[in-house]
């Protein structure tokens, strides 16, 4: 009876997968798995020919999609067949869909390797059904607090699947992930040695507007405050607990010993590898993939070839043009301070004079929707402001005021902040229509960027890749719209200036001094080209986060 149900589920799943390809390929990542699981809730357990030693699960808060993609690319470059949920459906139906697509009619897995990105909350259900020998953990950080509450909840979820049979591959510099190694049969650590930070700042790692306010994390073992002697990212770096002795390992198993962001290279041992995307997050993704590949017996030559040819799917950095000025979009995840901080750091690495459009929005994960903006206060803005941000536009209907206040607290001159309580691209672009900058950055959800691109396409304001405005702008089209937008901009800026001037505080001057000092330090360094930078930290898995 069980086998009959499994066959029925598999057949229905395959039919659904086939149908999804014709109807809407973009929506087909989950549907066949959902159908199969509806028919046979134990569907995952019954797939045959899964070799635990060739099965890898990848989980963590940020970076699991890119790590998954990179690992699969390394294995395929080395000549192995791999089944994986590269489309990013990382919950149980997504895993089922992957298996449906990669099994024959008898339900046997056809590929040598099975590599699955697993949502942290779904990990226990996936691990229960799929006998993986390896678990890769990227990091455990604050994310989706309305669901998760706090990171310790996620740490417990992941810890619940770890036992002696499992080898974990964990980030040596991320304390919560490293602590998971205590529970496993074996732990392999990967590491990035301290390096000159991407965006130089008063402290190592991400900028801080004033070191007095700098905070880290509690020790996952004894809960005392961790002390970081170097940070490559916020609360990721060389750390120790002075109370219980828990610390990042001095000699991790695999370590990036040097990085040259300008050249796009990093070194492990005596071998230099290509780094296509120049953020700290990508370094960690690469060294994680390297650590696993070495464990699986992949040669350095194959790894090097894979890293040199890797192209991340669903990159989180796109550029369009608005009236001849490049507009760089950086995708962020809602309620996730690490992705917001990384976006700030990428912008801070650009020495050009720039405007920043920040669209933190109400969170629509589930009912009740709410107005969480507090994670902006988890981020440090010192390097961002020191890097030459001439103007900031805070938009979205409800949360814009809180974001403007965050910038004000960081010391941004209030006359340089515009508030646009709207999601209308016309109104938002109007706020920068007469701001003289060399680049514009946009940080917000993907759905708004899609709307903006559609608007620009309609108005001829940008072609996305031509670098020029559309010729022959139709009468009454773009120019008229620009005129209206310019008037709207002036009105909006005047109103914003009135609001902000009223709230001016003396702290601004002190912070501006600090900001200028940081700017001076920064300009002595050569930042990387942001045109070549892709923000990987956002999961591309959950459509509800668009």
């Amino acid at each position, binding site marked *: 009876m069980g086998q009959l149900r499994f066959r029925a589920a598999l057949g229905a799943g395959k039919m659904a997968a086939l149908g999804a390809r014709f109807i809407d390929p973009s929506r087909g990542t989950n549907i066949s798995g959902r159908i199969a699981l509806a028919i046979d809730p134990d569907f995952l357990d019954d797939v045959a020919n899964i070799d635990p030693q060739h099965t890898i699960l990848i989980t963590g808060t940020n970076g699991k999609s890119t790590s998954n993609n990179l690992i699969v690319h390394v294995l395929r470059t080395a000549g192995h067949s791999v089944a994986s949920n590269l489309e990013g459906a990382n919950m149980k139906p997504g895993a089922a869909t992957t298996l449906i697509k990669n099994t024959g009619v008898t339900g046997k897995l056809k590929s040598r390797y099975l590599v699955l990105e697993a949502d942290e909350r779904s990990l226990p259900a996936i691990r229960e059904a799929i006998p993986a020998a390896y678990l890769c953990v990227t990091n455990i950080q604050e994310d989706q607090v309305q669901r998760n509450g706090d990171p310790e909840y996620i740490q417990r979820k992941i810890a619940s699947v770890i036992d002696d049979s499992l080898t974990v591959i964990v980030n040596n510099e991320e304390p919560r992930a490293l602590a998971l190694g205590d529970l496993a049969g074996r732990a392999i650590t990967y590491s990035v040695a301290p390096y000159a930070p991407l965006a130089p700042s008063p402290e190592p790692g991400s900028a801080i507007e004033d070191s007095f306010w700098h905070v880290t994390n509690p020790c996952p073992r004894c809960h005392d405050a961790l002390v970081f002697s170097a940070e490559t990212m916020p609360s990721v770096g060389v750390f120790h607990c002075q109370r219980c002795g828990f610390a990042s390992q001095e000699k991790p198993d695999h370590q990036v010993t040097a990085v040259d962001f300008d050249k796009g290279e990093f070194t492990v041992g005596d071998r230099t590898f290509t780094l296509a995307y120049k953020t700290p997050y990508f370094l960690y993704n690469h060294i994680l993939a390297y650590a696993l590949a070495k464990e699986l017996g992949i040669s350095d030559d194959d790894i090097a070839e894979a890293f040199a040819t890797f192209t991340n799917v669903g990159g989180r950095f796109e550029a369009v043009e608005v009236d001849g000025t490049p507009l760089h979009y950086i995708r962020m995840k809602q309620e996730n*301070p690490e992705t917001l901080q990384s976006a700030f750091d990428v912008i801070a690495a650009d020495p050009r004079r720039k405007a920043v459009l920040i669209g933190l929005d109400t969170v629509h994960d589930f009912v009740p*929707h*709410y*107005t969480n903006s507090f994670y902006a206060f988890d981020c440090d803005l010192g390097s961002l402001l020191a890097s030459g941000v001439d103007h900031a536009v805070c938009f979205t209907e409800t949360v814009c005021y809180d974001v403007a206040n965050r910038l004000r607290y960081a010391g941004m001159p209030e006359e340089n902040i515009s508030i646009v309580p709207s999601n209308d691209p016309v109104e938002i672009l109007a706020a920068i229509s007469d701001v003289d900058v060399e680049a514009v950055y946009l940080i917000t959800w993907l759905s708004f960027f899609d709307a903006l691109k559609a608007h620009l396409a309609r108005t001829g304001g940008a072609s996305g890749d031509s670098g020029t405005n559309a010729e022959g702008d139709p009468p009454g089209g773009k120019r008229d719209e620009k005129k209206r937008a310019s008037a709207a901009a002036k009105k909006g800026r005047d109103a914003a200036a009135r609001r*902000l001037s*009223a709230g*001016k505080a003396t*702290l601004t001057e002190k912070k501006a001094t600090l900001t200028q000092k940081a700017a001076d330090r920064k300009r002595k360094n050569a930042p990387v080209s942001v045109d070549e930078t892709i923000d990987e930290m956002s999961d591309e898995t959950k459509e509800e986060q668009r």
Partner: protein
Amino acid sequence: MSARPTLNVLWMYPSILNLYGDRGNLMALRWVGEQAGVDVTVRRVEHLDDKADLGWADLIVFNPGELALMPDVITAVMGQRAAIGNYASQGKVIFATGTSGALLAKRTARRSGSNFPGLGLLDMVMTERETPLGDDLITRIDDLGDDIVGNQIQMVDASLGDGQTPFGRVVYGYGNAGAGTADGAISRGVVFTNHLGPVLVKNPWLTLWLIRRALPEAASHLPAPDDPQMRSTWNLERDSSAAILRFTTAKEKPSYATHAGNQSRRDR
């Protein structure tokens, strides 16, 4: 008053009690203090083994932390239990948000079946929730003209004793026990609220209210939270509050019967 008053603030365990941008509360105390003519000095009590200089402090801030680490934090503060009790008995101010209410409560029950004690400064018992309650939260307290607008990620429910006064009344959001309209608790200067994150940034009127309570001798010389000049400097925060109020009024409410958003809004 010839000299500017000074407010001494202890920031308890900044890297341990640190979940939701809560450090903004300390920034706000300094920011609003400057606006009100108060020199605000903040000292960090960094490690669990560090002793807090309670004799120096006018205001102690406990931001929320992971519930799992609260037993260790409570063990640390219990080492100064008598001194903290003496501090509180003088009417001096302790401000705790979110899960740090467990530190001020009589005890907290975890879902695992274990319990850990609190300082017992509030007649309150906490119970860990299975899942957090996350939403906007709007609270009204009697001596503030403006509502307190913020967020809750409620991981523990609070049950107040019969004689225990709530900090405020929920006009939107979940109450202390998920149900009801009580937010937090207050006993003289000891204040607990379910508002977390940088609630003092978003609500400078509450920040000034706290500063005035922490400096009773100077309070008569300080502007009041409804002072027109102070309010004129808080336009951004007031715009934020108004926008969130509009949002909470219009948005789809959860189906739970306990949610205050489902209750009458006649007094809004």
